């Protein structure tokens, strides 16, 4: 089943591109020129996104390196100690919305140190699979079109992330 989905997902992009260029040609579109005209927009979009990424990345990296991250993680750990949640899970829950590369590194580290079949690994695996790097998504999508007023989007995302972590921890328990 997994191999089947894996193969299918490898197939999708090549097939989609093939279909697009064939359909375009059929509709008398000069696909080469059309592709170039579209690709020309790429740099402009990235130029819009770059300052947003820079701004949030600087803050997140600084947050990790300053020791504030460890302090907050330990605080949460003691706060929720009655729930019997491994400290690795708390780390993951805080780092996942902030940084994709850091959460992947942390996950690999957890698998290595606590074992591939430990409870900590199972819970963090579910968090890894079911949560997204919220602040990256926000920076890229809002930066791309230069939105300044986000209304109540950020609090909604943070509440949703929190619910997502609780759901992930619960779902992993039944693993």
């Amino acid at each position, binding site marked *: 089943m997994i191999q089947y989905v*894996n193969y299918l*997902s490898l197939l999708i992009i090549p097939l989609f591109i093939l279909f697009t260029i064939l359909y375009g040609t059929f509709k008398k579109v000069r696909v080469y020129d059309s592709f170039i005209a579209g690709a020309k927009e790429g740099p402009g979009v990235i130029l819009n996104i770059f300052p947003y990424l820079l701004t*949030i990345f600087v803050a997140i990296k600084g947050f990790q390196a300053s020791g504030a991250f460890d302090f907050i993680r330990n605080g949460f750990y003691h706060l929720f100690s009655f729930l019997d949640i491994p400290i690795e899970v708390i780390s993951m829950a805080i780092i996942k919305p902030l940084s994709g590369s850091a959460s992947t590194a942390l996950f690999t580290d957890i698998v290595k140190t606590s074992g*591939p079949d430990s409870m900590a690994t*199972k819970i963090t695996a579910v968090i890894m699979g079911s949560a997204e790097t919220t602040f990256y*998504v926000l920076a890229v999508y809002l930066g791309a079109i230069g939105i300044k007023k986000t209304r109540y989007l950020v609090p909604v995302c943070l509440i949703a992330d929190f619910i997502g972590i609780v*759901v992930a921890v619960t779902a992993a328990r039944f693993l």
Partner: protein
Amino acid sequence: MNVIWLLLLSVSIVFAVCTGNLEAFTKSIFEGAKSAVEISLFLLGIVSIWMGITRILEDSGLIYRIAHLFKPVISRLFKNIPGDHPSISAITLNVLANLFGLGNAATPLGIKAMQELDTLNEDKETITFEMMIFIVINTASIQLIPFSVIGILASYNAKNPAAIVLPVLIATVVSAISALIVLFSFRKVLK
């Protein structure tokens, strides 16, 4: 974002001073800048590719056909998208790419979707509710099979790496639905 950024930075600096992590902090700021450059360069490539492909979709009119096909599904959630608007196609393609774990396609198509949704936006500085729905769906990360996680588990010889598929799917669907419930209740309360 203003408050979060202010908090992250000022708390970090206070901690760096108190714990003596000043050097590490200063270094990390420039590391952050470096990874912003690296990720932007990476995005430059994949976004340009998908901008090229979606331009062919536009020029050939396929983007309107896809929109027409998926309108009944998409407009259930996105109620204020008129007719066979191109944003419907971009949203559909982004969701499909996410489902199959095609991150390199999902992000550029998501950017495209935001641009298309922005054409319906009257006040360019303020986010629309449609954009919020779209971002909330994306931050919930709906995917059928978490390949990268399974890959890491398998490389460390986990007994059954694929066992996480079902809990991940349940977690991701439940959190996506609850995220939407949170979003819609915010709108209701703040109206």
